[in-house]
């Protein structure tokens, strides 16, 4: 494992107010260490997604600072933003696969945009699809795959360029219980291999299964932060 555990995400006094004055996040302070597995829980509208968006720089905070690997995200120029995002693999409830590309092409795309050489793509993409259990179906289009299978493709895509961190926003929201467990097991496995994982979920079983640090958000505030946690409403 990593010799030196360092802070991968540091959030300092972050407030996010959307147009219309709605405050999604209100004075958040948070540190995430490299290699941690974090379950982010809270009701819909508590600010989970917004918090995650700040990390992969889809949104910028109204107040406060977000540091990734000790780098202030507000100082990254728009041109350099894609490079930041390549450090983070993202997984979503609605999968966000490219519908016109096969499973293989979807995963390969994440490597292509980085300028990876063809030989590496040909070698690594089938390997990673094998690991998530989709080696047989890699030339199918998303519409030909079940929800659980699509989410596995998404995980493969998130992992392919070996990101420092996986951000999963309700990854099991659209899945049946069996697929949900599979996905969480995959996330735990990924975490075991050293990648930091943030899992936002309001699924009690999923969070309890993980049994890792639990952060509870309510109305834009952190109300609980347990190192060895269970799903709860504080």
């Amino acid at each position: 494992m990593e010799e030196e555990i360092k802070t991968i995400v540091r959030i300092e006094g972050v407030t996010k107010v959307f147009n219309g004055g709605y405050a999604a996040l209100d004075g958040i302070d948070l540190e995430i260490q490299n290699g941690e597995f974090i379950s982010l829980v809270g009701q819909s509208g508590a600010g989970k997604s917004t918090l995650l968006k700040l990390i992969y720089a889809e949104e910028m905070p109204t107040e406060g600072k977000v540091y990734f690997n000790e780098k202030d995200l507000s100082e990254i120029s728009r041109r350099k933003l894609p490079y930041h995002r390549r450090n983070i693999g993202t997984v979503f409830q609605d999968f966000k696969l490219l519908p016109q590309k096969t499973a293989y092409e979807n995963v390969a795309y994440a490597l292509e945009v980085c300028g990876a050489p063809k030989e590496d793509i040909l070698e690594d993409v089938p390997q990673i699809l094998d690991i998530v259990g989709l080696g047989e179906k890699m030339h199918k289009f998303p519409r030909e795959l079940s929800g659980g299978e699509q989410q596995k493709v998404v995980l493969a895509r998130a992992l392919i360029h070996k990101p420092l961190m996986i951000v999963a926003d309700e990854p099991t929201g659209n899945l049946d219980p069996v697929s949900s467990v599979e996905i969480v097991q995959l996330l735990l496995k990924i975490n075991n291999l050293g990648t930091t994982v943030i899992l936002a979920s309001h699924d009690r079983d999923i969070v309890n299964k993980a049994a890792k640090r639990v952060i509870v958000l309510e109305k834009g505030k952190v109300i609980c932060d347990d190192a060895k946690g269970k799903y709860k409403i504080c």
Partner: protein
Amino acid sequence: MTQRENIKFVKINLSKKNMFLVIARTFRGGMNNFWRNGWLSVAAVSVLVLSLYIIGVMLVVTVTTNGILKNIQEKVNISVYFKPDVSEDRINQIKVQLEESTEVKSAEFVSKEKALEDFKRNNANEPVIMQSLEEIGGNPLLSSLVIKANEPSQYETISSFVSGDSFKEDVSRVNYGKNKEIINKLNGIISEIKRIGLVLVAVFSAIAILIIFNTIRIAIYTHKQEIEVMRLVGSSNMFIRLPFIFEGVVYGIVASLVSMLLLFVTLKFLSPYLTRVIPTENLLSFYFSRFGILILIQTAFGVFLGVVSSVIAVRKYLRI
């Protein structure tokens, strides 16, 4: 742990850009979009074809009309008749003087002998006229200069020039008065047709641009989520934009080819009718003699529209 050792993860130099790789990959992406979006591509190309076709037809109509008008213009002239005692030398002197002025395109000398000859030939079937000509005896006709202007609007100036004081001793009469009405009418028609043609081309081009622009925007709107996904996996803006631009280029090229084919069919069908009305015009030979420039204009226009609308539409979702 074992699994991690199994995978040789790619080591990527993020700062190094391989432009060739980017272009090859985005080009392939654009082609894939074009084929895999089947109906959307058909819709976008059809609209583009229609617009290019209309513009092509307008182009041919404008050029042909101009040709016809030029033809008619060629036949318009004014004649200056000289008094019987004016010598040929003097007339030649005036001819040279006229030819030096900017308005005059040509001035042709017609001697009274030639005028008589022409008159006899033209009226050979009119016994009454021929008989009266014989009764008069000799040659009643005058020598003249037949003047053509560069522009129909210049006849007025030329006419007042030759009717002026400097030629009072020489000139018997100028037939401008007689031709004045027809020349003015022609003048009006020409400028009217030119104006209408220009307005029509402008209006149709504007409509075409708007329709194409919106069609391609809608086509890209369906890619809205894809663009979001591309950004999330760390695509640079260029890498997102290029496939759409290539797609726009393909739209333009395919549309211009189809439109040229349609134009050919239309002209082949219409050509015999036009040739019957105006024997000097042949639409098909026009099409082939200008094939290069026609296809160039159409392709340039199509590709330009395709690319510009793609760039603007993608721009919206890139949040630049």
